[in-house]
């Protein structure tokens, strides 16, 4: 039987991965600013900007070219991480994860170029938004896989603790959040952010008249928010039953972020899509996804503590002679 290579904790490589994840969240915020300020086409060419590497950073150019600069920085960090991981990581799966992250950030850059070249077609803009979230999850996975916690074996729960339940709840919450982010991206890039102009009611009712596709998509996003709240609340309950303190803490953070996200969603509508609450709503959405994803990774890393002999014997009905 082949023994898998032992992972060695590399603190600086782990810090680089965690730093890349943090920079990715900031990049998502900066990307959100581009759309919120209507600057998506302020730089009409790609990959250069007005034929220059560094154009005057005025007006919409400040947001769009600033976004390109931040994206280039994250691409550079990812490249360093991928090459470093390839050269020094014993686990083949982690090496593949690092290359996957690099390929994804390259694809994300190309999608960004396509949005400019083809004048912000909605499907490409939505794909660009969703791939950003996927890349964020990849980098979080890399950071976790290189962490002392993961290499040390992860958390441990008692045999009768709810390991399967918390795993299922975490995976479901992550899936629901991702679907909600995708719906939000569709709504934003089809210009339906104010298709329902009031809150908490919808056109003065609980259920608005579905006059057009924008109203339907916007309402689906509001319903999705309630589903996210329910899924994350359920996750917190299941995390409590697992009795792993890290899972409970991370799930609590996720629930607080969801509640903040709902407030920001309301603020976005009531402010008529003012730049600050709208962009914060994009960034906190990514933070909710990242947190739920981290809970999922931790849940799937949970081990069972060995069952005491007396307890096992009682369970299977065998007498144990001392």
């Amino acid at each position, binding site marked *: 039987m082949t023994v898998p290579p032992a992972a060695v904790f590399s603190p600086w490589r782990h810090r680089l991965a965690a730093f890349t994840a943090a920079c990715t969240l900031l990049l998502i915020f900066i990307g959100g600013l581009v759309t919120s*300020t*209507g*600057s*998506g*086409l*302020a*730089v*009409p*060419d*790609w*990959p250069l900007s*007005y*034929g*220059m590497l560094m*154009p*005057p950073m*005025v*007006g*919409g*150019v*400040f947001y*769009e070219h600033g976004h390109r600069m931040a994206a280039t920085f994250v691409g550079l960090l990812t490249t360093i991480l991928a090459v470093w991981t390839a050269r020094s990581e014993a686990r083949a799966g982690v090496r593949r994860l690092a290359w996957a992250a690099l390929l994804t950030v*390259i694809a994300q850059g*190309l999608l960004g*170029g*396509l949005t*400019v*070249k*083809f*004048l912000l077609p909605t499907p490409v803009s939505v794909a660009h938004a969703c791939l950003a979230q996927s890349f964020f999850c990849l980098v979080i996975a890399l950071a976790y896989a290189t962490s002392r916690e993961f290499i040390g074996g992860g958390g441990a729960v008692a045999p009768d603790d709810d390991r399967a339940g918390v795993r299922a709840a975490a995976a479901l919450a992550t899936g629901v959040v991702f679907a909600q982010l995708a719906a939000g991206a569709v709504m934003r890039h089809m210009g339906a952010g104010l298709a329902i102009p009031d809150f908490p009611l919808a056109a003065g009712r609980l259920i608005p008249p579905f006059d057009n596709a924008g109203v339907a998509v916007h309402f689906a996003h509001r319903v999705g928010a309630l589903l996210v709240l329910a899924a994350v609340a359920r996750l917190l309950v299941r995390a409590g039953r697992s009795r792993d303190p890290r899972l409970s803490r991370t799930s609590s953070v996720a629930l607080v972020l969801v509640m903040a996200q709902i407030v920001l969603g309301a603020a976005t509508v009531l402010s008529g899509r003012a730049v600050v609450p709208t962009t914060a709503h994009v960034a906190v959405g990514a933070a909710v996804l990242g947190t739920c994803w981290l809970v999922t990774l931790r849940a799937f890393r949970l081990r069972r503590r060995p069952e005491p002999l007396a307890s096992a014997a009682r369970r299977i009905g065998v007498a144990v002679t001392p």
Partner: protein
Amino acid sequence: MSIRNRFAVLVLAAFAVTAACGGGEKQETQAPPPPAGTAASPAAGAPPAAGNEMISGKVTYDGVVPPPEKVKLSADPKCVELNKDGLEKQPIKVTDGGLANVLVYVKNGPAGSYPVPTEPAVIDQQGCNYTPHVVAMQAGQPLKIKNSDDTLHNIHPRPTVNAEFNIGQPRKGMETTKTFDKKEVMFPVGCDVHPWMRAYISVLDHPFYAVTEADGTFEIKGLPAGEYEVEAYHEKLKAQTQKVTVKAGEPAKADFAFKG
């Protein structure tokens, strides 16, 4: 070839393909403007009946005029420098009751195909604003886009029938010529660098149109006698239409009254 080298080649190829494709326009490149001195007809057909008659009038506005909105120019120091007294946006511009920047045009022009002017219509970026605010031109006529500012602009018209494009003019003195081939009334053109910049372009399939002056007056010349449907279109107040009878030897009058 090693796996790493294959990967590098794939990445470089992907960049090359993406940099080469697209071009900032949603459709194929438009036809170049006709050479100077020639008059190309947009479609085969009988030439229109000659006309010497005129429709003139005044577009007025009766109502509360929203106060001008002061534009925050701080996003571009050059725009601040070019507008020492500040810049204001006022879509509803009224002088002595007359409403400026209204497109007035004949909806049902006399049958026939009209020679396309070779003289370009012009829109200029001056003081981080468009001059004029409303441009009217014929389908196929060249539109000369000028940058008279010492700062960069992008020109991004948003038609729904014609081809959309987005081009950059990073330097003062740059000029670009484009054409629109299809009739389309009052579609916006803006600059994504300076979001307050807004103008409107109208493309007609005949030469019977005008944009009202500051005092709301207009003249449409060269019409043969006949019955016409004339529309006045303002960016905020939208459209009014009326039937006008043009008799030989008698200038016709058409006044429009918008209310706020």
